């Protein structure tokens, strides 16, 4: 099965109203080529799920600025003033989720779990509307799974089968979102033959990856 695709094939994979999970932390580990394709497409009403909305010119920031996003589920928006402005103007729904809870909800969505019990948020506004449970005398919140139509991932290296290696802290959300979407698209700096990545070094197994595109800067 050939998973390697060319850039013109990326845009048509997205539709209005889709939910897209993205890797990256303040833009580090976000597939910027795929974000650029989305930005140039006319796709709108997107829901984005990821750590943060980065900066206006970094990570998924340009998609927020262009008005193609109607909802974000993130842990932080403070470094991108456009997100806050659009939220206040009523143009963007912002669900703020504690970072550790967000990644666990995605992990649940990708691993067949119905939710997770976390102490994070107990006694704060985060607990509003949620089921609270005591286990062993300690209180927890039930947090529900998250999934997406498409996950967009940035990896350092892929083999032609789709085994992935990430670079340093650019790993962050990427290996977790690879489990939690119906279609997984990876932008890579380097493409190698099957067998060239030591099996012990694989961080995301090829079985999770659907499409691979080579970064244009690479």
């Amino acid at each position, binding site marked *: 099965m050939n998973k390697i695709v060319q850039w013109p094939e990326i845009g048509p994979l997205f539709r209005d109203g889709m939910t897209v999970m993205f890797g990256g*932390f*303040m*833009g*580090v*580990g976000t597939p910027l080529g795929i974000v650029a394709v989305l930005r140039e497409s006319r796709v709108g009403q997107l829901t984005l799920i990821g*750590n*943060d909305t*980065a900066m206006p010119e970094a990570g998924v920031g340009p998609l927020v600025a262009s008005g193609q996003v109607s909802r974000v589920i*993130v*842990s*932080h*928006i*403070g*470094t991108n003033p456009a997100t*806050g402005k659009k*939220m206040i103007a009523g143009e963007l729904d912002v669900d*703020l989720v*504690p*970072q*550790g*809870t967000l*990644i*666990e909800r995605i*992990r649940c969505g990708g691993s067949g779990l119905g939710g997770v019990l*976390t*102490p*994070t*948020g*107990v*006694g*704060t*506004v*985060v607990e509003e509307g949620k089921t609270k449970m005591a286990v062993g005398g300690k209180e927890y919140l039930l947090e529900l799974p998250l999934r997406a139509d498409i996950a967009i991932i940035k990896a*350092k290296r892929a083999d032609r089968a789709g085994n992935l290696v*990430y*670079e*340093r*802290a*650019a*790993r*962050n*959300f*990427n*290996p*977790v979102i690879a489990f939690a979407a119906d279609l997984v698209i990876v932008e890579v700096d380097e493409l190698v033959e099957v067998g060239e990545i030591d099996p012990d070094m694989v*961080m995301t197994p090829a079985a999770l990856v659907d499409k691979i595109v080579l970064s244009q800067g690479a």
Partner: protein
Amino acid sequence: MEAKEIIARRVAQELKEGYVVNLGIGLPTMVPRFLPKGVNITLQSENGFLGLGPLEGEPMPGVVNAGGVPCGLAPGAAMFDSATSFALIRGGHVDVTVLGGLQVDEEGSLANWMVPGKMVPGMGGAMDLVSGARKVIVAMEHCTKEGETRILERCSLPLTAKSRVSLVVTELAVFSISHGEFVLLETAPGISVETVREKTGARFAMADKVGEMALA
């Protein structure tokens, strides 16, 4: 000595050899400069590694701290994904987190993530850190720029976590919270208990011997 330096120097005394420590942005990042000689700690960065170090030379691809700023890696650093990073944090594998604060109250609750109508940046990893770290130290200036105390009977701002703070260090005083009791442990050099009382909204008990803050 500047307030921030007083706070950072005192917090540094709390960190022991071998601790795994997570530092919030701002003032807490000053703490490692003042570590006692011979004390080695490992810094955790919530974006996915242990072994955060100062940037030496050119930025390296993918090596940034939790503020997205290029940083260095200490020898023996380990990289991982965000689920692992927060398993470390919530699972009690981080010995100490040092965080800035907007308000702390006598129940040990902390507010540091939003001001309704003014500042809604999101909580990032702060709620998980305060919920999960073994020890939570709040390092902040005692009063706001307008002179209002940040140490209250009850926080008026939305909480980051309830009853999780165990030590509060300001430029005037050190308080501990244990077994539901808010206790004045130390005052800064030249600061009287009366001054601390005037500038503190929380009710506090006195330690058996209120000491002077060590700023070595």
